[in-house]
């Protein structure tokens, strides 16, 4: 590659060479340690995940198997229907698991697949997450496996279902998982709690551009 900017970089680096003691610059780039912040090893990953998520205004339910998850979904949505969040129109991702679980509930789903220009009219979005991070309460959404970029973002409520076995302890583990044995997906999103801002007088307000409420159902029976 050759262009004006690369040439400028090369000539300025060459000018700098006499001033540099390059050998002193650490090249320890291969060894990066995952740290163990606040990780209490006696706690299960699911419990730690729940604590971390609740610390950032998210809600977490730990369920055992499909029937239990369907019950949790029904509970969350009927409770929301009593609030000003309405929760009438529900959009779900294209993950077959979500569709199956929705049939197990008594809820009416208005649409299963959503066109992008229609997404703004939905009250709740439901998807799965491909992984999670316990130390930060983070969901890992991988677009290669599911179409959930918009259902997880646009409706005022996002409900995500994640397998307990997919919860990593640390951020470093989750990053490694994304690259393990496969090409990196075109779009990966980490989600830690509901959308937030503090741009007005540093006052925390949830639900700016993304969801105001985030519920995660951890499936502990896998």
């Amino acid at each position, binding site marked *: 590659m050759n262009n004006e900017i690369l040439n400028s970089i090369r000539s300025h680096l060459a000018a700098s060479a006499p001033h540099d003691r390059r050998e002193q610059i650490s090249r320890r780039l291969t060894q990066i340690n995952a740290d163990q912040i606040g990780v209490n090893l006696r706690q299960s990953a699911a419990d730690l995940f729940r604590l971390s998520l609740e610390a950032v205004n998210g809600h977490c339910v730990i369920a055992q198997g499909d029937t239990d998850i369907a019950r949790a979904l029904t509970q969350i949505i009927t409770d929301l229907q009593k609030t000003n969040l309405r929760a009438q129109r529900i959009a779900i991702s294209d993950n077959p698991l979500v569709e199956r679980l929705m049939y197990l509930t008594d809820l009416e789903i208005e649409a299963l697949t959503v066109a992008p220009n229609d997404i703004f009219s939905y009250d709740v979005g439901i998807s799965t997450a491909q992984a999670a991070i316990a130390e930060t309460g983070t969901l890992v959404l991988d*677009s290669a496996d599911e179409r959930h970029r918009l259902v997880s973002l646009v409706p005022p409520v996002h409900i995500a279902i994640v397998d307990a076995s997919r919860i990593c302890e640390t951020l470093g583990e989750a990053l490694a998982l994304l*690259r393990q044995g496969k090409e990196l997906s075109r779009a990966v999103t*980490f989600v830690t709690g509901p959308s937030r801002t503090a*741009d*007005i007088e540093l006052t925390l307000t949830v639900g700016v551009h*993304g969801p105001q409420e985030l519920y995660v159902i951890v499936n502990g029976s896998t």
Partner: protein
Amino acid sequence: MTSQTSETFRENAKAALADVHLRGALKHATSVFGERRKQAAAGLPNWEDLRTQARAIKDEVLLHLDRYLEEFVTNAESCGAKVHWARDAAAANSIICGLATERQARVVVKSKSMTTEETHLNDALEAAGMQVVETDLGEYIIQLAEETPSHIIAPAIHKTRGQIAELFTNELGMPPTDDIAQMTRTARLTLRDHFAAADVGISGVNFGVAETGTIVIVENEGNIRLTTSLPRMHIAVMGIEKVVPRFADLDIFLKLLPRSGTGQRLTTYQSFITGVKKQQSDEGPEELHIVLLDNGRSRMLAHPVTRQSLACIRCGACLNACPVYQQIGGHAYGSVYPGPIGAVITPQLMGIEKTSQLPYASSLCGACREVCPVKIDIPQLLLHLRSEIAPRKGGVAERLVFKVWARAMMSPTLYKLSSVAGRIVQRVTPISRAWTNGRDLRPIESKSFHDLWNE
């Protein structure tokens, strides 16, 4: 407010000091951010190691920036992104306006990007006939108010809720309220219309990963996700210094950046974008353009002292820690980048002629260096820049004074004579009014150490 320049820094600072409301807001904001940062850093036992490693990675990248950029570009393009090189602000703006015009864009949504503030992209897009909408809440507020950001991560830090409510009532027809949640809701609804109508989304970039060609963007609000998901074209503007070698390096930077900026363990959202979607039915834009901006950055590589400016990850921690910023805020600097890091970056980006007061906007206390997550020695940089300014600025009188002083120091008789003279002069005249206005000058002792020793 918006017309302040770096050339009038002293006057700007004086005006800011007289603004009681501004100082109250700054005191609150900088102390809250500072305290949160401190707690977040204390939560990681290996914080110091992380800083050292982060800096080592940045040094490695900068010393071989050409190679890492080539690797980044090759990998990003192999995943379907198109990379453009822009040597300066004008080149970047013309590339971006060209792309948007090609798309026949009428509405452009933007997520917060200091780099596009640096190039004044909004003016260029508007001149090309497009409506540009800032979507970060703070940026949206200052866009409506026709102001500029006063803090790297909290752009509207200088405005009260009352001012913002009035602005929203006048501009957006919001019923009068002092409820922040209501104001936020108003912005959400108004901006959704813009998102739905937007043809092009423009974002910044926090990290570009060389080995995968991935761009990483961090945020709390969700407007970056919308900007990079809904419009058919996404343009990402990235300073050439934003490259990191490996995907695993993000483990270090994603720990340091949010903790240093807002005291969070992670910001709410991290978007990792690698090229464009593979199938038409997938979500996301059809086109991704990455504009690599030099704009004076490659020049900073020419010396190890100036080169470290390029290690900055734009967390804003040095602003909050700086006793000067704490008193005068961001606008007084008259530059896109305020605070200690602004005082060193701005003269290097914009040239020292119009910004020569900025390297003096510091007491060299070193608080910025203490909090910097990538250990940039800002005081060293300030001194380096001052040493470039001094030979140009030092007047004849100053040079004469130092010549006389040097002569006196070399001769014991002249030295003795001068201290006697000093005692008399000090009693008769206030030596420098600017200096003694704010503090007392200790009187010179009537006997020198030498005299006392002899006794």
